[in-house]
């Protein structure tokens, strides 16, 4: 069921992967298309999640709404789902960010219900 939801993201243009992941880097579920996960991807995602959480805390204990890291070829969007669970989307730079973030918000409750 979670795979079906993640698959909705892969339908979007140039989205390469959709991952539900815990802060510690443990992947709960993932769907990918045309991308190879390197071994240290989990470590990378974990670092972004934990560091961002720590950084947001400096804003009067603010919560993270979204983290967006862009490189010249790909970008990563991380959105908190609940507690230490996050939804990570990896996409080519040509992907439509607005569409992705809209889908993330739209599917958040459905993902939470499956965790």
């Amino acid at each position, binding site marked *: 069921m979670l795979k079906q939801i993640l698959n909705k993201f892969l339908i979007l243009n140039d989205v390469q992967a959709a991952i539900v992941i815990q802060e510690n880097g443990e992947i709960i579920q993932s769907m990918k298309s045309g991308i190879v996960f390197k071994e240290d991807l989990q470590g990378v995602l974990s670092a972004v999640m934990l560091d961002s959480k720590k950084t947001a805390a400096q804003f009067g204990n*603010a919560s993270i709404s979204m983290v*967006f890291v862009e490189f010249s070829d790909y970008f990563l969007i991380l959105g908190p789902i609940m507690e230490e669970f996050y939804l990570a989307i990896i996409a080519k730079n040509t992907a439509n960010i607005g569409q992705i973030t809209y889908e993330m918000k739209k599917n958040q409750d459905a993902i939470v219900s499956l965790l």
Partner: protein
Amino acid sequence: MIDQLPEGNSIGWMQAPPQWIFTHTVRFIGVVRVVIQDGEGFILIKKGKPLVYYFKHGRIELRGHAALDYFSSQPTIEINLCRYTPEEFSQALKICDVGKTVPETVDVQKQAPAVPAQAGVVEKTMEDSTVISQPEQPPPVLTEKPELMRRNPVTAVPAKPVAAVTERPIIPEPAILDDPDIKIIGQIKKLNGIVAISVFNDDRNILLMGDVEIDPLLKIARTMLATTKRITPHLDWGSFIHMTLQIPEGNVIVAPYHENNLCILTTRTINIGHIRRILRDLQQDRSGEVMV
């Protein structure tokens, strides 16, 4: 006198150490408007040469050396560079009665090398584009929300300006920022939803436009940059463009900018797509031909 000056073409308000003005106006003809607490003043500049210094707070008026010394006694001042046309400049010269004022002015650029060296402080000149930035200070821990990072308007009566300062200001280590850079940063700052923009490096803030407390913001920006430096070697995704942290109050964006970095604080309503495009353009075209 300030009110009589031609308005000129404003590049935008920014915060910078006073010395920054003299090293960034080599090709500038116009007036640098200065605001310090409740007082205001200006420096009339022709291609890097300051012709008139003036500051007024209440009934106190400072001119020439006295005004310069007061400016220099401030670690940073709020400034607005306003370019003049030749006609406007002529008009300003007349208003300032420059013929009488010139003997009172000081050529800061020529005086700069005479500043006594201080421990750990290096001064160097790099062609005509040198930034003198703020001395390094340990960043305080931020406990406020972004909205609260904006400084409250100063309503208290400031201390009386010091008319004669015996010690010259400390000139910290410079970094590089050209005129086109300032123009680009100013254009970005003018976009809807941009609260503040800073150019900074590992050691210090180089330029700040916007009304925020810089140290807490830089602490956050450096933490974000550290994250990107940690993850980039593990990803085969190309060069780093930017990292954006979105919290309910707004966005903090960090991005490389030439040898330095940018930190942009925005409201939640900002058009992220527009900012993305600008940041990409900045990295693709380092000549400064960026469509903001």
